[in-house]
Each structure stands twice: as C-alpha cells, then as structure tokens.
C-alpha cells in the first residue's frame, strides 16, 4: 500500500504543516486578544481585582514590608519575594512564572496540598499508578513536561529499550502514552510484533509454532538477522551456510529427524559399498560434518572379510591378482594403512622372484641383473629384509685382504658366469713377474685355474 499523498507529500506531513499553520493563527488571535483587553497577570505580581493572596496568617506582622501605606493594593516598589529563601521551597520550572494565586488561593492552606507532592495540586493523569514522584520521569525544570532521559529511565523497567526499540515512538508500544496510560503493557514480543510474525514465512514461523521467545533467535535490531539456537544439531562444516530449506524443505521445522541418513539417503545409496555391504546408516561412525572424504572406519573387531570392502584396493595393488595373493588382507596389512604390509614367508623357500622381480631388477649393489645373479633370492637373502642378504665367498675372501674392494667383474669377467674367473688379468700378475716367482714350482703354469689350485684362499704362500 502506498502512502496517501496530499499536495505532493504524505498526508501525515501535510497535516503537520497544517497544524503549524493553525497554531500560528491561534497565536496571533491570542496575542491580539491580549492587546484588546486580556491583561495578563505578570508572574509574582499583583492585580487588585484578584484580592489578596490568602492566607496572610503566616506573613510577617509588619504589613509595611510589602504594602505601601496608601492602599492594600499597592505593593512597595522595592518588593521582592524569593520563594526559596522566604518560604523554604524553591520554585522550579513553570512554577517560577506562575502567579501566586495559582497555588495560594481559596482552596485552603497550600501546605496541605504541597505535602502530598505534585498530585496535591496537579491532576494525576496516571491515576496513581506510577506513584507520586513525578520528577522521577519528568523534568520539572524544562519548559515542557516531556519525560527526561527516557532511555535510561526505561532501563529500570523489565524492558530496557535496546536496538530498534530505542528509536521507536512511545505510542508505538504504549497506545495510551499520549494520555499517560502505560499500565499493563506487555513485554511479550509477539504481542507487539504479531504482524512481523505473520509475515515471517521463510521459514513460516506460525506453521512451526514459533510464536514466542523471539529473543532466542533474533536480536532486537533487525528481524533478518537471526541467530537460531541450533546447538542441538551443530551447523558446522558441510552444514554451515546452508539455507534452512536445504534441510527443512517444505517448511518442516518441527520434529525433523536428526539422523544423517534422513537427509543423506541419496549419498548413502550412491556411496560405494554402503548398500551392498549394509553399512551403518549412522554416518557419524565413519564420517564427520567436514565432508564425506576422510572417513574414519572403525575396524575394531573386524578381523576377516576385508576384501568385501577393499576389493578394489586388492585389484589395483601390485601383484595381488597376478600372484594370487590371499584376499584375507589382514594376513599382510593392518587397519592403519595399506603401506607396510607384513607378508609371512613361512614355508616359502623358493620362487621369490615371482614376487620380488622388481626388487631384483632394481638392485644395484651389486647389480643383480647385469651381474647375472640368479633369481633364486633365497640363495643370498632371507625373508626378513633384503638388506640382510648374505653371499658366501668365504673360500676366497674378498671382503678383506688384497682382494677386498674389488668388483665382481674384476675377477669374473663373463657376466653371470661366476664359475669362470681370472687371476692373471690383474696387472700384478703379469707373465714375467709371475714366472719369476714360480721358477722353482713344479707343475707351474700361467693359468688362473693353476693359481686357484695352489692359492685357494688367495694368499701368496
């Protein structure tokens, strides 16, 4: 609905200007009236036809302090009256400008009324409901009578004016404020905000039964900023930043099943193995709200049947299929990681290369392939570790003495033919030098086999 426009402005604003004009006219009329004979009484001055202030019985007995001798109606030129000093009561605000007779009149001694406070003389528009101390809320010294420090005073009630309420007109909450009626004002949010509640359809508060305790979700600043207490179902990780409808479709905010699968049934259905293996629908057993990845499956108690879940890992693992590895993964692997599989070699005494061809090929110290090592790994290695490989060359020591540090090829020049060897290809064993050392050896020949026959441990003597 558009605001009603009058003379190009909202009707209320037009009315305000009209009222201002009306008051101007009224002021002119009143001021003109005064000039035409309405002679006002000056504050604290006197007017003969009003008669004396009554009572006079508390006045000093010397009339001459106030009156001139010629007439009771004549007040001395130097007459002054300080109400605070001479009556013990300071006149504040509008009282300063009031004529004496407004209080000191024929109603009776003013002290009877003054002792009752403001309501002794002034009508109490609050009908006694707010007490007798008007100055608690009203500024007596101000020209007007509007409440003072309204925000601070309101803070002493059950309903401090917070947020939007601090800039709201009094009559918006207290429809009787203009006539002093503040009684029985509700502090229930919805009693004033029923319209806001009716308009709250995303989500639809009424349907959900959210018709009270607005403060649990909303601050008193702006309805659009809601901080719903969702602690019963933490909105973190993948649940953060979602629109309410992502979970609460169809405005179903009541009794929503908090089980993961209630919302994530499709995820469950499409997840690998979950259906076929009848995984638990309590997703939290393996997953967190941070994401489906990185599931933490608790294998506690699961000792068999790994392949039921891990067939793909089995199929893609090196050699497992080709070598016909057992599908009882637990024989080699733990639940911590596929890495570090512990294969029991018990009973396996041959055929290492079926599994360890890669290790054979990759070995460089010595290079098994180029050196023509056999693939019977068990000849040198055990099943504990490759590093513990042992090579029996004890008959002809090569790890110490003169032959230490030589490469295999130095003595076994034909790759893979380790039965063949040469002793005389070394420069120290030249024909002339060797012959000169063996001139008295019977049956000596300059041949490697002859060397070995006489020097089977490589020693000279």
């Amino acid at each position, binding site marked *: *609905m558009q*605001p009603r426009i009058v003379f190009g402005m*909202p009707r*209320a604003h037009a*009315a305000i200007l009209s*009222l*201002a004009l009306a008051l101007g006219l009224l*002021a002119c009329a*009143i*001021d003109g009236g005064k000039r035409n004979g*309405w002679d006002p*009484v000056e504050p604290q001055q006197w007017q003969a*036809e*009003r*008669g*004396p202030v*009554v009572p006079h019985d508390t006045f*000093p007995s*010397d009339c*001459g*302090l106030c009156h001139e*001798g010629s007439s009771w109606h004549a007040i001395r030129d*130097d007459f002054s009256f300080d109400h605070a*000093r*001479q*009556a013990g009561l300071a006149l504040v605000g509008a009282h300063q*400008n009031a004529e004496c007779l407004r209080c000191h009149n*024929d*109603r009776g001694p003013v002290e009877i009324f003054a*002792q009752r406070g403001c309501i002794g003389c002034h009508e*109490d528009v609050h009908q006694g*409901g707010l007490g*007798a101390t008007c100055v608690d809320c009203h500024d007596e010294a101000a*020209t007007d009578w*509007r409440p003072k*420090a309204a*925000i*601070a005073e309101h*803070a*002493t009630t*059950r309903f*401090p004016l*917070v*947020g939007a309420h601090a*800039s*709201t*007109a009094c009559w918006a909450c207290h429809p009787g404020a*203009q*006539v002093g*009626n503040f*009684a*029985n004002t509700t*502090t229930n949010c919805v009693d004033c905000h029923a*319209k806001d509640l009716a308009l709250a359809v995303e989500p639809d508060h009424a349907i959900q039964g959210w018709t009270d305790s607005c403060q649990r979700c909303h*601050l*008193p*600043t*702006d309805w659009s900023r809601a*901080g719903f207490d969702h*602690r019963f179902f933490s909105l973190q990780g993948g649940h953060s930043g979602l629109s309410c409808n992502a979970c609460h479709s169809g405005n179903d905010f009541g009794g929503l099943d908090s089980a993961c699968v209630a919302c994530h049934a499709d995820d469950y259905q499409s997840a690998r193995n979950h259906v076929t293996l009848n995984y638990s629908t309590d997703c939290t057993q393996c997953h967190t709200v941070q994401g489906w990845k990185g599931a933490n499956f608790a294998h506690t108690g699961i000792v068999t049947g790994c392949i039921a879940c891990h067939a793909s890992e089995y199929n893609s693992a090196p050699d497992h299929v080709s070598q016909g590895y057992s599908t009882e993964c637990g024989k080699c692997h733990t639940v911590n990681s596929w890495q570090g599989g512990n294969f029991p070699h018990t009973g396996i005494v041959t055929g290492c290369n079926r599994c360890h061809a890669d290790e054979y090929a990759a070995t460089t110290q010595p290079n098994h392939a180029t050196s023509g090592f056999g693939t019977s790994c068990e000849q040198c290695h055990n099943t504990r570790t490759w590093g513990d490989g042992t090579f029996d060359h004890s008959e002809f020591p090569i790890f110490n003495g003169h032959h230490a540090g030589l490469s295999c090829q130095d003595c076994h020049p034909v790759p893979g033919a380790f039965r063949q060897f040469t002793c005389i290809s070394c420069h120290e064993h030249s024909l002339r030098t060797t012959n000169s050392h063996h001139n008295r050896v019977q049956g000596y020949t300059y041949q490697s086999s002859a060397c070995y026959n006489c020097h089977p441990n490589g020693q000279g003597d």
Partner: protein
Amino acid sequence: MKAFPYGALAILLLGSFARADDVRIEIRVTSAAGSTVYVDRGSANGLADGDRVQFRLDSGAIANGTIRNVSANSARVELDPLSARPSLGSRGEVVVPDSRPGASQAGRGDLGKPPVDHPPWTQAPESWDKDRPLLAPAFAITPEERESRLFGRAWLRYDGTWDAQGDRNYGLAAVGTDMTLENPFGDGGALRLDAEAFTRMSDVGSDDGLYQYDDTRVRLDRFSYQVGGTVDRPNQFLVGRFMQAGVPELGLLDGGEWNHRTDGGSEFGASVGWMPEPFPDRMSFQDLQAAIHYRHAFDVKRQNSVGIAYQNTWHDGEQDRNLFVLDAEARPSEELSLRAAAWVDLYDSADTIKGSGPELTQARFSGTWTPTPGAGVGLFLSEQRIPEILRDEFLARRADDVRNSVVDRIGLNGWTTVGQRTRLDARIEQWSDEADDGVNGEIGATFSELFGARSSLAATLQYADGSYSSGPGARLQARDTFGSTNVSLGLQSFWFSQKDYGGEDDQLAQHSLFGTVDVPLSDHWDLSFVGDRSIGDELDSWTVGFLLQTRF
C-alpha cells in the same frame, strides 16, 4: 566546652572592631520562614538594605545574614547559606554608621515614636464593637466577586524520529490548549478545556505498506465545569469530562461528581457517568460507572488520612468491575512521609479467568525519610496484576497473562549533598514477574555551579537487568543557562547482552547524544527543542522535536 563563649567572644570582637563612629543596633527575631527571618527594627532605627546581621543562637553559635527588605519598623533578613536559623526571640545586632537617621537613638536603646507610614484612620472608634477584631484577617475576594477571566496555555509540538538503519520513521505533531475560564457565570466556578489535535505517522520500512500508519484526531481530555471546594464552600460539584477529584484512581469521567469536606478535613462524595477509554481517541459511553468514596482525616491539615472508594462499572450494559481503592497517607514527623494505595477487584462467577473472590490488582507503598534537607532515603514496594475486565483499558492480553501475570517491585533510593555543590544519588530496584526477575541500579553525582552559576554536571553509572537483556550503562549530562536560555547536553551509553540468544554475538552497544534548549521568546512565549542522535549496533537514528508554547 560549650559554644556559647565563642559566640559571645565573636560578638565582642565585632563590637571591638567597629569604628568609633559606628553604632550597634540590637535586634530581635519576630518571625521566620525558610532561610529568612524578620526582625523588629527597621529604617526608623537606622537599618538599611544590605546591612550585615549577626544573631546569637540558643546554642551560643553565631548565625549571619543580610538585610534585604526594610520597612520603618521591621526588616527581612536573608541568612547566609548553611547558617542555622535563629528561633523566634533570638537576639542579634547590626553595626550601622552613626550618621544614619535614627541610628544613634536606637543604639542608645531609645526607639522613639514609630513613624506613621499609612494614612490616618478614618473609621470612628465607636463603629467598632467588642466582637469585632481590631485587625481582621485578610480574606480573598470571594470567587463570585472576581471578574471573569481566561487563562491557560496553548502549544504546538512536534517530535520526529528517523532511523536510517531500520528504515523507520515516526512523527507526532499536535496543537492543543489547556485553558480555564474563571467565574463565567458569576458563581465562582471554572470552565476548563483541555484538548489537543494531533497527527501521528509511523513508517517501519516495508514496501508493502503494512507498516505505514497515520491518523489524525482531536482528543478531548477535559471539558468540565467545577464549582465549590474552596475554604468557604465545602461542597464541590464537577460536571462534564474531568478527572475525578475525590479519588483520581477512579479515572476520567463523562458525568458528574459531588464531594463534601467536613470541618475536620474529612471528605466523602459520589460520582456517576461514563468512563472514556484511556487511549488518544477517548472513546466513551461504553463504560458506565458509579462510585462513592470516603476519606477520613485525622487532622485538619490532612497529614494523616485513610480513604476508601468503591466503583462499580458496566461495559455496554454488562456488569464489569467491582473495584475497591484503599489508600493511606501518614506523616508521623516532618522528616517522614508514608503513602500507600491498593486496588482490589472483587470477582464473581461471571469472571471466568479469575474466579470468584477478591484479588489485589495493584498495590503501591512509598516512604521517604529526609532527616536533613539535603539528604534522605526512599523505599517503595509495588505489585501489579492484570484485572479481568470487559473494558478496553489496555492491549488485549491472553487469558494466561490475565490469570498469572504479576509484577513485584521493591526499590530503595538515597541522596545526600556533599558540601554545597555536590549531590550524590543512588537507587537499586529488584523486580520479579511470573517468569523472571532482575535487578536494576544506578549511582550518580551531580556537581552544581561547575561552569556557571546555574550550571550542573551529572554523571551516572547504571546497570539494567531486564527480561530479555542486561548490561551496564553510563550517562553524562551537563546543564547551563545562558541569559534566560536553558541548555542541556548529555551522552549516554549502554552495552547490552541479550539473554537466551542462540546466535554467536549477543552484545549490542548503543550510544546517544542528546540535548535540549529552552528559549523564552517573550513573557508569554517559550520555545523548546529536543534532539537525540543515537548510534550503535544496527542503530542509527535521529530524533528532533520542538514545543512552541504560549501562556495567556
């Protein structure tokens, strides 16, 4: 050691330092009021405006003052601030130059013949009889003798609020008058009119218009004729629209009321009429009421009294409310004032929510003890329930609210002055309702004459604990007067946290800079401005207002 010797010594010293051509005039207090005393010497005895006076108190201490008004045979003395007031008969003295007329004789104790400052008596002595007092009390001109005259005030006011953050606007403009036509019919009565035409507008930002609201109305608060109720007319009659005079708690009435005051100060009366609704439209003629009341005064000044009133109402012809209002006022001493009132509804079988029987709908008690003029403590207690009534007196409430709602309060406040220019205030209040409870409190100090003679600076710390929010606050407000223009400027801040909030940040800060300016335009015209700039968490608003008022 008693103080008397010091006082006597001071008097002697004063005399010893008096110049040789000065003379001491002895005076005596004849009457006293406030911080003023009257003495039995005047200009005929050499006293003049501005002379300093010393009094010897009964305790022997000294009180000082200054002569402000002087007649031939008496003078008014304003006591210095914080001076004790001498009792009647106390003696004192004034040192005046010997050259003043009458001073020398007065100094010697020779008062001479008092001058005559009024015309000679024209009344023959034989016209007096023995029953006629020589000095008749002064009576006011009787109401019937007074000329008819119109007095009152008229105003234009406007208050507007613009909240940019929330896109909210409010406006209220009004023109009104509160006037009294005195003695229009020659019977001493008064015709009173209190009315206001206003327009209100609110626009709480929305494009669909659901939150746009404005209305323009004329509100009639008073239109009544009242006669009697004066010292010589114990019967008082009111007719028209008026606040009930006998028992204001019974509310506004379109009808008539009669009250009678006894010689002892007690009162009784009755009223009948319709009760306008307590909303700006003042709808009437739906709630008929009849009421009677009696107030017993234990003394003619009505310092101690108890009262009871009974009101029966009918809403659209249907029996509605049986209400008893009880109240008591007591003033056991000058320092102690006690006041209590209770509203008791008597329900019957037609009241389906409350059930039959009496229930205390509202009660208030307040007591104030002011042992010295500058210090005191106050205590108040209150309890309030929602009555089950048919009349539209407040926004409709749920039956559960009417049945269960009860708000209790207890508060204690105190104030004291420190020196001549500092006042300390403190108050604490505890409240509870059917669902919650809390404590509010504040402590503050007001420093007077900090900038100028009529300036003040008030600083207050506050803590508020409401149903939905709680937090500390602070307020600073300065006032001063420039010529005849009053200016005040203040700053207040609150830091609230919201209770039960499910979100992460429940803290809200709000700050407000506010001020007022009261400008008297002439003897009859006043103009007042108010302004408030509030900022804070999701708060950005301006409030401005003015009041243009004329008195006539």
